[in-house]
């Protein structure tokens, strides 16, 4: 069997399994660890798509920065009291889950008919995923959105400091 297909199957199964673990674990720390595993699996999937830079940034930003923040908050809040962690299932959550699952089934049925008709990676895929081409496009065509994102991050920084302050007067 082809190596590419094998790797895709491996990472896809890993990604789905760790995603399911993330939403089903009762303990938030176990959830967070499954989510870290999920980010690594996605990074592998990006590598099968020849997107090297996105794969590296995925590990650095998501598994590195965002998950550290989440785990830090989980530790800070110290959520014990096991019986309070039990989920109550109501008609609303059951209906929501069923409708969401129906959506996935619909998408899969649609895609099984092979509507895109694309079977192989584009020949340019190898060149567009490199750091050089990403950097060149980011600082020429996408320069304005890039600067706008820096403002967004500044606003988030100030907002989170204000929100987490002890006494807001």
């Amino acid at each position, binding site marked *: *069997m082809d190596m*590419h*297909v094998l790797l895709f199957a491996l990472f*896809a199964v890993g990604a*789905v399994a760790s*995603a399911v673990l*993330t*939403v089903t674990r009762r303990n*938030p720390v176990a959830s*967070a660890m499954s*989510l870290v595993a999920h*980010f690594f699996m*996605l990074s592998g999937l990006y590598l*099968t*798509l020849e*997107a090297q830079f*996105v794969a590296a*940034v*995925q590990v650095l*930003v*998501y598994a590195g*920065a*965002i998950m550290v923040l*989440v785990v830090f*908050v989980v530790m800070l*809040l110290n959520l014990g009291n096991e019986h*309070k962690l039990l*989920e*109550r*299932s109501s008609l609303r*959550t059951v209906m929501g*889950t069923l409708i969401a*699952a129906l*959506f996935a089934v619909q*998408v899969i049925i649609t*895609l*099984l008919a*092979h*509507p*895109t008709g*694309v*079977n192989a*990676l*584009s*020949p340019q*895929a190898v060149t*567009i*995923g490199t750091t050089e*081409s*990403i950097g060149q496009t*980011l600082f020429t*065509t*996408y320069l304005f959105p890039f600067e706008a*994102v820096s403002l*967004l*991050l500044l606003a*988030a920084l100030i*907002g989170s400091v204000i*929100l*987490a302050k002890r006494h807001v007067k």
Partner: protein
Amino acid sequence: MPTTIPLDWYLMLSAVLFVTGVIGVITRRNAIIIFMSLELMLNAVNLTMVSFSAYNGSIGGQMFVFFIMAVAAAEAAVGLAIVLALFRNKQTVYVDEVNVMKW
């Protein structure tokens, strides 16, 4: 088994991952786990973007992934600060126990 992977496989995978995130948001009570499910949904969309970009030979999809990551980082910082402020004021992170704006 084909020797190359059709685009549809990646799209199906990301649909399944997205719906897993949706189910997490709907069923869980812990605000932090709801938050992690949101990250799952954002990542499923990122996978769609990167696969379209690689199969189309266009770089736009990967650029969008960077902007989505920046928004996710901003959202993580503000969201967790809100959870902290919530815990400080109400001593809970369970979303069904926070109902002061419900009537």
